[in-house]
C-alpha cells in the first residue's frame, strides 16, 4: 500500500473542503512549515488527539566509527521526538495487518 504524501493530503483538502488545488497544495506546505518553525524556535508542538512533537537536547557523548573502531565524539544535538496521543494510539493499536 503506497504511503500517504503531501499530494494526497492536498487532494483531501480539495475534495473534502473544496479548497482549490493551488490553495490546498499551499496550505499543506504551510501547515508543515509552521510546525518546523515552531520546533526550530525551540517550541514543541502539541496536537491534541494526534500527538506531541517534543524537543530533546542531548549532550555530547563518546562514539565510535563502526568501520574503523576510531573514537569520535558525537556532538551535542537537539532532536525531535513524537509522542502519539491517546486517541491515535487507540486507533492504531487494533490494526491487525502485517508489520
Amino acid at each position: 500500500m503506497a504511503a500517504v504524501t503531501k499530494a494526497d493530503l492536498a487532494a483531501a483538502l480539495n475534495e473534502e473542503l473544496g479548497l482549490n488545488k493551488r490553495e490546498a497544495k499551499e496550505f499543506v506546505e504551510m501547515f508543515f512549515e509552521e510546525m518546523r518553525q515552531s520546533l526550530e524556535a525551540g517550541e514543541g508542538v502539541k496536537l491534541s488527539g494526534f500527538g506531541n512533537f517534543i524537543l530533546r537536547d542531548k549532550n555530547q557523548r563518546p562514539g565510535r566509527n563502526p568501520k574503523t573502531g576510531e573514537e569520535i565524539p558525537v556532538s551535542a544535538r537537539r532532536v525531535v521526538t513524537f509522542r502519539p496521543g491517546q486517541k491515535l494510539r487507540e486507533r492504531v493499536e487494533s490494526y491487525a495487518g502485517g508489520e
Partner: protein
Amino acid sequence: MGHFVPGNRIAFLSDESQMTKSELIENLARKSPHLPARDVEMSVKALLERMSHALANGQRVEIRGFGSFSLHFRPPRLGRNPKTGESVALPGKHVPHFKPGKELRERVNDAISGTE
C-alpha cells in the same frame, strides 16, 4: 553518524512552551488571509484526521522535509497486574512511530549549534 553507546545518553526535556493546535490554527489563519478562519480550522483537522486514518489502516505517511509516520509492532508479552502480582498475557499491538526528515532534523539542530 556515530554509533550508540548504551548508558551514556543524557537527555532532558526542553522546558520551553509549546504550540497547541489552536495556536497553530491561529498562526495559519493569520498567514492565509484569503481563507476564512473556519476553513483553516477545518483544514487542520482534516489533515490530522487523514494522517490518523492512514496510520489506523497500517499505511505510512511520508512528508518530505518534515518526516515519516509508520507503525511499529510490539510483540505479545507477559505483563503483571501491579496490584495482585498476577501475570497477564498482553497481546501484540502496533504503535505509531515518527522519524524526522532531513530538513527538520537540520533546522532544529542548526538552531542550537549553527553548523554541522
